C-alpha cells in the first residue's frame, strides 16, 4: 500500500488524494502564520490570516464590494461575449475551409503575440475612458487565442466522419451543420471555459488605467493606501469568481453532452 503512493501513474485511494491537497493548503497557511504572527515580516506588507478574514467580512457587510464585483463581472462578461460571438463562427469557418484558414490564420497568429496591455494607450485614444475601452482590453486579450483554439477543435473532426457523411448523401452545407458543428461543440464549449478564465486575468489590466470602480480599481487603490489586506481580498474574490464560472461551464458541459458518458443520460 505505502509503496503504491510513489509508483508512477498508479491509482491511489480517493481519501489520500484529497488529503494531499488539503495538506498543501495547510502547509501554506502554516508558513503564512509563522511569518506573520512570528513577526518575521512587517504586517504593513503582509497581514496575518485573521486580518484578511476580518477585512473580507467588513468589505462584504459594508456592501460596496458588491457593486465593484457587479461592474467587473459585467466588463469581463461583455468583453468575453463580444469575443466569442465573432471567434466561434470565425474559428469554425477557419477549421472547415482551408481558404479561410489560409486567409486569417497568419494575421491572427501575428496579432496574438502583441500584448493586450500595450494596446491600452491606443484604446484610450480611440475609445476614451468609458466601458467600451475596458471591454476592448478583455476582447483583445481573449479573441485571437479563442479563434485559433476553436479552429483547432474544428480541424480535429475525424476525416472519416466527413467522408462517410458524403456517402450518406450529405451536401457541403449539411457537412458543416450536421457533422462538423455538432462534432466540435464539446470542444468549443471547453474552449469558452478556458478563455473565460483568461478574460478574468485581463480584468485587472483593464481596470488599472482610467477606471473609477471595479475590483481591479479597488486593488490599485489599496496599494496606493498601503492596504495589503484589501489587495489580497480583491485577488481572492477574482479567483473565486473565476472558479465559479469554471464550475458553471463544466456543469453546462456535463448536462449538454451526455453522449460522451458511457453510463448514458
Amino acid at each position, binding site marked *: 500500500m505505502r509503496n503504491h503512493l510513489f509508483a508512477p501513474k498508479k491509482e491511489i485511494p480517493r481519501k489520500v488524494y484529497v488529503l494531499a491537497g488539503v495538506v498543501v493548503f495547510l502547509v501554506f497557511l502554516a508558513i503564512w502564520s509563522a511569518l506573520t504572527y512570528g513577526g518575521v515580516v512587517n504586517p504593513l506588507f503582509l497581514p496575518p490570516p485573521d486580518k484578511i478574514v476580518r477585512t473580507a467580512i467588513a468589505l462584504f457587510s459594508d456592501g460596496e464590494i458588491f457593486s465593484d464585483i457587479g461592474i467587473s463581472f459585467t466588463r469581463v462578461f461583455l468583453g468575453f461575449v463580444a469575443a466569442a460571438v465573432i471567434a466561434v463562427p470565425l474559428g469554425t469557418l477557419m477549421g472547415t475551409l482551408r481558404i479561410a484558414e489560409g486567409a486569417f490564420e497568419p494575421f491572427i497568429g501575428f496579432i496574438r503575440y502583441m500584448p493586450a496591455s500595450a494596446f491600452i494607450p491606443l484604446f484610450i485614444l480611440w475609445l476614451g475612458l468609458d466601458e467600451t475601452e475596458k471591454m476592448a482590453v478583455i476582447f483583445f486579450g481573449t479573441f485571437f487565442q479563442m479563434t485559433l483554439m476553436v479552429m483547432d477543435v474544428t480541424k480535429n473532426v475525424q476525416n*472519416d466522419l466527413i467522408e*462517410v457523411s458524403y*456517402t450518406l*448523401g450529405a451536401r457541403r452545407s449539411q457537412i458543416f451543420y450536421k457533422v462538423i458543428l455538432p462534432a466540435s*461543440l464539446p470542444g468549443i464549449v471547453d474552449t469558452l471555459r478556458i478563455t473565460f478564465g483568461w478574460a478574468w486575468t485581463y480584468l485587472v489590466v483593464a481596470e488599472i488605467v482610467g477606471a473609477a470602480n471595479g475590483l481591479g480599481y479597488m486593488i490599485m487603490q489599496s496599494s496606493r493606501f498601503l492596504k495589503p489586506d484589501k489587495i489580497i481580498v480583491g485577488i481572492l474574490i477574482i479567483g473565486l469568481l473565476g472558479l465559479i464560472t469554471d464550475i458553471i461551464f463544466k456543469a453546462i458541459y456535463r448536462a449538454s453532452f451526455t453522449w460522451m458518458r458511457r453510463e*448514458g443520460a
Partner: protein
Amino acid sequence: METAKLVIDQVGKVFSTKSGETVALDKTSFEIKEGEFITILGPSGCGKSTLLRIVAGLEEPSSGRVRLDGREIHGPGPDRGMVFQSYTLYPWLTVEDNIAFGLQLKGVSKAERLEVARHYLELIGLAGFEKHYPIQLSGGMKQRVAIARALANDPEILLMDEPFGALDAQTRAIMQEILLKVWEESKKTILFITHDVEEAVFLGDTVYVMTARPGRLKKSIPVTLPRPREYSVKNSAAFFELKMELLELIREESLKVVKP
C-alpha cells in the same frame, strides 16, 4: 445496354509525391453483377482501398471511369453506401438517429425514418439498442450499426473497406455471419475489401486477388461453396482448398513487399 451493376473500366490512380509519381493502382477493369458479393483480397498497400474510394467517389481516378447502372459516377453519393474500417458513427446521435441519418438528410419524416431504422436494427440483431449512444456499444456493435446506417439509405451497392479489420477474431467471425444474413435478406450488391484470406472466401461469390504495389488484378477465383453459408463451411475440404490456393497467391505478393 450493360448487364453489369458496376463497371470498373481501366481505372488507375497515380499519386504525385516529392520523389516523383507513385502508381497506387494500375489500370484495373472488372464488372460486378446485380446482387453479387465480391471480395477483393490484397496485401497491405496494394491500392485496394484506393480502388474502393474511387468507386465511392471520395477520390478521382487518374485514368478510366466507373459506371454504376450505366451512369458514370462523379463524386460521392447516397447510391453507394460505405462502411469504413474505423468507427464512423456520429457519437452525438443515438443508434436509431445514426441509422436514420441519411434519410434525415433526404428530408424523410421522423416517423418514417425511425420505422426504417427499427427495421434495420432488427436485421443486424440490435433491437432494443435504439436509444443507446455509440460510446455505449462494443466495436462489433458499432460496425453493425454502421452497416445498418448504410443500408437504411437503400443504396445500389454497398462498399466495405475492411470493416471488421479492427475487431478481434471471434467477433469478426460472428460479424461475417451476420453480414451474410443481411446480404441474403437485402439482396444488395456488395464490394468488400479485406486482407484476410478466410474472410474473402467465406463471404464472396468471387474473390479478386490483387498484386502488390502497383496494385493490379492478379486473378479472379470463383467461390463455388453453397449458399447460404454457415461457419461450419470453413471446415469443409472445398473451403480449405480455396484457402490454400489464395494463401499461395497472396503470399507471393506479400513477399514482394517484404523483400523487394
